């Protein structure tokens, strides 16, 4: 198993058991641990491809920029928070496909749950703030600002809401990729190790059994 250089002995992909003792999923599985495009990792599918990795690296900023554009321009053109969020998360999926699960962990700005929570809070703010002024939920406010470079700009509180949508979509996709991609991969690795250990253990037991035939059967491999 690859261990984290900063925390000796800590499993990289949180494996066996959570520390908090609350019975929940192990924390820390999705925390960033690695530098981007490191050399020790194995991608999810097939052998590593340097070409794919480089292309990915070049593409990602462009994809993220596109996603922000979609988010902002949604009010006038096809796009919006959903499309923007999906495009942005596509960047991370690409990164995972190219670099494997450690790439994904390394590149996250924050944990998916955090993104979800913040996104939901933005939604609640857009919904709930008007309530404080006795207005109905989701009443949009509009501000006209004059910015130095862009000149006259209309800012809608709906944009704020769309940003929340954006975050939630990214959070969802990251969550799913982390769970159904990275975690499953890690689990498989673990199971493989376990099988190997078991085979070794079985072999030893068989050897022992040959040495002392009438031994009582013992418990499981612990």
């Amino acid at each position: 198993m690859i261990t984290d250089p900063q925390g000796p002995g800590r499993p990289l992909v949180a494996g066996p058991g959570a520390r908090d003792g609350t019975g929940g999923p192990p924390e820390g599985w999705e925390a960033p641990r690695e530098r981007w495009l490191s050399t020790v990792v194995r991608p999810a599918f097939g052998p590593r491809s340097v070409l794919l990795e480089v292309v990915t690296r070049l593409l990602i900023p462009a994809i993220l920029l596109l996603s922000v554009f979609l988010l902002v321009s949604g009010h006038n053109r096809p796009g919006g928070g959903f499309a923007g969020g999906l495009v942005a998360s596509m960047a991370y999926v690409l990164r995972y496909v190219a670099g494997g699960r450690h790439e994904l962990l390394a590149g996250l700005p924050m944990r998916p749950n955090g993104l979800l929570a913040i996104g939901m809070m933005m939604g609640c703010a857009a919904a709930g703030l008007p309530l404080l002024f006795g207005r109905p939920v989701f009443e949009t406010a509009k501000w006209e600002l004059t910015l130095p470079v862009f000149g006259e700009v209309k800012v809608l509180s709906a944009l704020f809401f769309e940003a929340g949508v954006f975050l939630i979509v990214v959070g969802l996709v990251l969550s799913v990729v982390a769970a159904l991609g990275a975690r499953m991969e890690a689990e498989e690795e673990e199971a493989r190790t376990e099988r190997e250990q078991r085979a070794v253990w079985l072999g030893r037991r068989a050897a022992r059994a040959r040495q002392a035939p009438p031994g009582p059967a013992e418990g499981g491999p612990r």
Partner: protein
Amino acid sequence: MNALLAVPFVVPLLGAAITLLLRRTPRSQRIAGAVTLSVVVADAAVLLWRTHDGTILTSQAGDWPAPLGITLVADPMASLLVLVSSAVLLVVLLYAIGQDIGGLSRATPQVFHPIYLVLTAGVSLSFIAGDLFNLFVGFEIMLTASYALITQAPTRARVRASMIYTVVSLTSSILFLTGIALVYALTGTVNMADIAEKLGAAPPELRMVLALLFFVVFGIKAAVVPMHFWLPDSYPVALTRISAIFAALLTKVAVYAIIRTQTLLFLRDDISTVLMVVAIATMVVGILGALAQSDINRIMSFALVSHIGFMIFGLALGTAAGLAGVVVYLVHHIVVQATLFLVNGLIRQYVGHTSLAAIRGLTAVSPALALFFFLPALSLAGLPPMSGFIAKVALFQAAVAVGGPLAWTGLAAGVLTSLLTLIAIFRIWTRAFWGTPRQDMLEARARLRSGSNRGGLRIMTAMTGVMVAVGVAVAVASGPLTAVGFTAAEDLLDGRAYVTAVLGEGAR
């Protein structure tokens, strides 16, 4: 007023976001969850206070006028249901908190609170949605949260059960969406008041098709026969706190949706014969299922199916008295069903399972538990002086007033079901609560009451007691409750009031 209508779902969602952020600190999560639900309960109480005389409160999301923006509507029925459901949600949450404090559960606490609050939001939104598509969204919020909850601590049995639950629910959701498409194709609107207006001009046969389709859609979720099979296979397997909420609320939301659509949208179209036949089948098949089971949770689940039949029966009568009976029955059943499942949870704590084959002498193990089972059991069986009796009398009285072969058959089925419920539920009592307790049960009690679990167990027991007390309070206050029921029923049958409240006087 705007805030009053929005709080029941905005605040829980805010609470969900906060608890999601707080997932490392269980203590603050618990406080946040409890505070959130208390706010909702308080808000719902005010809501009911404002609407109990038949007033219909509306709020237009985004301040866009009615058919364009989404309408939130609180009529007496919706307010009452929001109040009762949030109160039950609060008590069950406290029960769950007790269980977690005592280390008595395997649920994943970090995500339990956020999802639970999302469920609350979904339930509330479904009650006060005045827009068909928004109702769909409310349902989806509730259902997605329920998918997440039913798989808490996913053992093999639970995963198996949640598969059935999820796929059936998804089927219903897709049919719901299809129904919305059809309604929109016919009327060009999704605002319920607007639909109610515009459906008037539609060909009656097509309206009838829609009425039946929507009955099927919500009937799946309400678990009416013959679309009930999924329920007893999934609910009993979930964690106690979750099956309690599911049994108490989810089917009721669907029943509410059936009532809302069939009264507001399709009042002109008489599908009461279908409703009555389904109601009778549901009552009888459900309770027969309960009699065939040998696990307390499964008996309760089948009994739940059976008693959904009572509510459909009241709706099928089509009179104000019948609907008033349904309102009372809804409130009664939400409380009682939650209580009984909480009691089952306590039984699981003492015994480890709920199979009748291996439980006896619970009265001796815990007299409080026995009392907490006995009173709601009486209520479920419809015996006086509990709330179940009032609800049943309301329905039966309405049936007698309507008369005719169908109503009488329904009444007969209701009587038969009451008796069989009595047999089923007292079979649990005589087998599990009477007799000499098994040694291991006494040992489990000693273990539970001495160790670190003690405080948690106390909270759980206390909360079950609170639910029992709520049940008794429902019975004591059934006078005012029934009065609200009648007001609500009149509002439901008088579509004009709803339409005027939403669209204003200028509506066609």
